[in-house]
């Protein structure tokens, strides 16, 4: 049973002026939620003007474009306790680090979604496999620069 009240979460994702790399759009994908697209623009920095935000029936989806050298403003409600990812959906971009994880309503996670027994079992099996097949070789399945995602 949820004890916390869902809160609106507002994020700006701003692409820095790129010095030695490509200014490309990134399809930003959220796990665990749809989000609302409040604003997005290419080749500019978010002005901080909240009157720009489209709050009346904005597009609701789970993947939206962060335009090249620009920004994306999104909002969602914290109504789904868990550990979730937000990442660029281009596979080699998330592999190269373009992701975050967010822990939502941490105090409720253990009791939500039927508990974490399945996770514990999965971790146990993974550790056995890793010790047996990976650890003896080079200690990790990841190569340098691979985020693991």
């Amino acid at each position, binding site marked *: 049973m949820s004890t*916390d009240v869902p*809160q*609106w*979460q*507002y*994020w*700006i*994702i701003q*692409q*820095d002026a*790129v010095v*030695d*790399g490509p200014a*490309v*759009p990134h*399809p930003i994908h959220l796990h665990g939620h*749809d989000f*609302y697209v*409040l604003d*997005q623009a290419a080749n500019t920095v978010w002005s*901080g003007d*909240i*009157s720009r935000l489209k709050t009346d029936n*904005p*597009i609701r*989806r789970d*993947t939206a*474009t*962060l335009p*090249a050298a620009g920004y994306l*403003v999104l*909002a969602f409600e*914290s109504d789904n*306790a868990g*550990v979730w990812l937000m*990442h660029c*959906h*281009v596979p*080699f*971009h998330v592999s*190269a*680090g*373009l*992701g*975050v994880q*967010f*822990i*939502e*309503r*941490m105090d409720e*996670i253990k009791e939500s979604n039927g508990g*974490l027994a399945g*996770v514990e079992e999965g971790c146990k099996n993974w550790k056995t496999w*890793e010790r047996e097949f990976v650890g003896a070789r080079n200690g990790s*399945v990841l190569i*340098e*620069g691979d*985020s*693991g*995602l």
Partner: protein
Amino acid sequence: MSLQAHEYAPSINLPCHLTLTHPPAGQRYDIIIHANATTSNYWLRVGTGGGTCDGPNANAANIRSIFRYAGAASGEPNSTAAAPLPTGCYDEAVTPHVKTSVPQKIPEEMKVGFTNTAGSGNLVQWLVNGSPMLIDLAYPTLQHIIDGNDTFESRRNVFKLGEKDQVRVVHHPWA
């Protein structure tokens, strides 16, 4: 074709003969195809954004499948593209069918950066708030939760949100 929904959120219908531009990776659309053309075989073409989305694609002109009407002869279609395939990488302007209003508040900011000098050699990395995400496969985040351990290395790119009495996103990863 007409568009019905985007990532399962019902949309107000767009007109027939819609040409989807290049949907970015990960986006999904529910569409209805109006099979009202002459019985034949037709190409369904997919553009890759003209190299502006996730890099050039040497085989861009050949990403196709075939729509075959019942009763049409076998063999490849000879239909031609009505217009050059769209380039660019944009979201479709869709309007949700179920209306929602979002409170207007000041967002928190995270910055996406890029470097090709991280680590050794010419390693290419994308950064969020200066940090390329790197997970620890031996100690998953949910294992932290099970253990009651809320200390994370900064390169895990962990944010914490929605706790009691906490309105704003904590947008700096923990050290």
